[in-house]
């Protein structure tokens, strides 16, 4: 039973950065902006988050630095794609390259330094509960934040006027503009929010996962986050399910190897991706409208006519 608890804890830890980054990207994409620079914003968040935590000794300051760094990079993206109407795909890819390079530069002075891991919640009595205690009441602040974030995004998108406007802009920016909604302003905010989330997700890695900074430490998690948004067909609750499923398959395949189940490790390493493909196929089979799950204006440049 202890092993089960340990596995669940590892799964949650592995899923949290994916969930944070994907949640932010989901909001940006729902507003119609495809930002492929998640990996770059994450690694910038990791570098700046570590720098902040190392210099001040505070996890919260580190997290704030990480979020700010992600948002700063997203601001560059917004300036180019919203302000100057540059192609979003190309800009996003460039943003990743910029982020990877810049984070290496910023982080260079911090390589080899160590910080204290983010503290975990401890409520006497509750955290000591067998099996569920540490899972429910013994996580670090990022885990609770990521869950609150998903719930908040769901509520915002489906239960508020602002969310309705954002979705309308993502589905048809010309109509939304004609109705008088500020398309570019809403998209700017959505992109900045997505950047802050990606930065926070990146900061999670050095602050709460492996407490040191190494260039390139996000190792492709930004791309997985992007895939998760598609996997979730742009819905926040499915996104949470997808992130935890992905984390679970990743961790379980490691445990299966350790237990010597004799399944080829190459196959097991590809399981999370195979699972993604299978679920995508299932979704598109069961939903008649699968093709239209994406926001209709996703990735399209909008230049307001006067």
């Amino acid at each position, binding site marked *: 039973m202890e*092993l089960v608890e*340990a*596995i669940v804890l*590892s799964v949650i830890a*592995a899923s949290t*950065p994916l969930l944070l980054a994907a949640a932010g990207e989901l909001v940006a994409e729902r507003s119609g902006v495809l930002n492929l620079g998640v990996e770059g914003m994450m690694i910038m968040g990791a570098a700046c988050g570590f720098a902040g935590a190392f210099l001040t000794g505070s996890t919260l300051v580190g997290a704030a630095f990480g979020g700010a760094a992600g948002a700063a990079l997203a601001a560059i993206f917004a300036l180019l794609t919203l302000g100057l109407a540059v192609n979003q795909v190309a800009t996003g890819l460039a943003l990743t*390259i910029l982020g*990877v*390079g810049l984070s*290496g*530069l910023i*982080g*260079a002075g911090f*390589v*080899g330094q*160590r910080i204290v*891991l983010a503290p975990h919640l401890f409520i006497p009595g509750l955290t000591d509960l067998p099996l569920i205690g540490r899972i429910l009441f013994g996580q670090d602040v990022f885990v609770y934040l990521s869950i609150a974030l998903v719930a908040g995004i769901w509520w915002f998108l489906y239960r508020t006027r602002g969310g309705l406007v954002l979705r309308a802009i993502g589905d048809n920016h010309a109509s939304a503009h004609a109705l008088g909604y500020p398309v570019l302003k809403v998209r700017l905010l959505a992109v900045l929010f997505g950047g802050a989330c990606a930065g926070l997700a990146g900061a999670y*890695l050095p602050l709460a*996962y*492996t*407490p*040191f900074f*190494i*260039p*390139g*430490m*996000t*190792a*492709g*998690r930004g791309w997985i986050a992007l895939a998760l948004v598609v996997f979730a067909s742009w819905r926040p609750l499915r996104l949470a399910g997808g992130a935890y499923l992905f984390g679970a398959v*990743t*961790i379980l395949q*490691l*445990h299966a*190897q*350790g*237990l*010597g189940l*004799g399944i*080829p*490790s*190459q196959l097991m*390493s590809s399981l999370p991706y195979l699972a993604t493909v299978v679920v995508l196929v299932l979704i598109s089979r069961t939903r008649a409208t699968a093709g239209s799950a994406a926001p209709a204006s996703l990735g399209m440049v909008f230049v307001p006519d006067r």
Partner: protein
Amino acid sequence: MRRFLITAAVAATAIVATGLTAAAADKLKIGLIYLGPVGDFGWTYQHEVGRQGLVKTLGDQVETTYLENVNEGPDAERSIEQLARAGNKLIFTTSFGYMDSTLKVAKKYPNVFFEHATGFKRAPNMSTYSGRFYEGRYIQGMIAAKMSKKGVLGYIGSFPIPEVISGMNATMLGAQTINPDIKVKIIWVNAWFDPGKEADAAKALADQGVDVLMQHTDSPAAMQIAAQRGILAFGQDSDMIKFGPKSQLTAIVDNWEPYYEQRARDVLAGKWKSEDTWGGLKSKLVVMAPYTNMPDDVKALAEKTEAAITNGSLHPFKCPVVDQSGKAVECKGGDHLDDGQILSMNFYVKGVDDKMPGK
């Protein structure tokens, strides 16, 4: 950074093309291709340490360029060719997966000298070099067997290539001299560098009751997890003691600097030859980090074993070497396996319960 360097390399090519080569001809231009970032604190970091040492000792005689984060694949060939075209006369490609790319480019540029790390393909202008890391692994196996209370070692593997397999086998053979029933749990992460995944694997092993961790991946993530969980571990490629001051038993340190310096001097003196260099503890290409966090008798045993391997009286793969099926492996090197057998090792020794991927 990499893009910048490539751009720089392209710019340099342009200069060469316009005929400004004479001025730079006195300096030996040396290029290096790295798999990971120079700050990985493992494999790539040690190559970078070697390059810096080379620059320090040879100073004005050399000019070095490196490209980091170069993927094994089409990217590698392009990057190696960039370096060759930019006028580098000596090029080090520092990962097994660059083997075929290096060979291809070497054939195109017969006047450039290539040095490929850890591979087995050579050409008149392409040498190979590697470390006998298995020598260090044998010592680690003995220490691990002494220090493990449960008799279960955890091993994080990157890819099932001969270098990694021979390391695992040497570990087991060393461990079996202490505890014949020693067990090993192997997890392949199918990556050289992914700190998060390496940490996940380390956690999984710790959760399954392993009390001594070993890794053949490139970041100190596993050491960090060992430190968190209060278990023991070995550093890989470089001394990782600061990531686990109370956890690191020792580490295999790759010491490339003397080799890089020697090869550069050979080119400068015009006597570079294509050869295969495989140095171990004796030639100090492989160095053991200080033995820490262990009782004196284990330390003494480790030092004794290290001395025996160094002076050649002990070979980690001394015959008979018995494979998983219980069959003794053919002994081509007299009283031990020969280098070819170790370099192409694709079997587990007896005592490894795991099934090799792809077999």
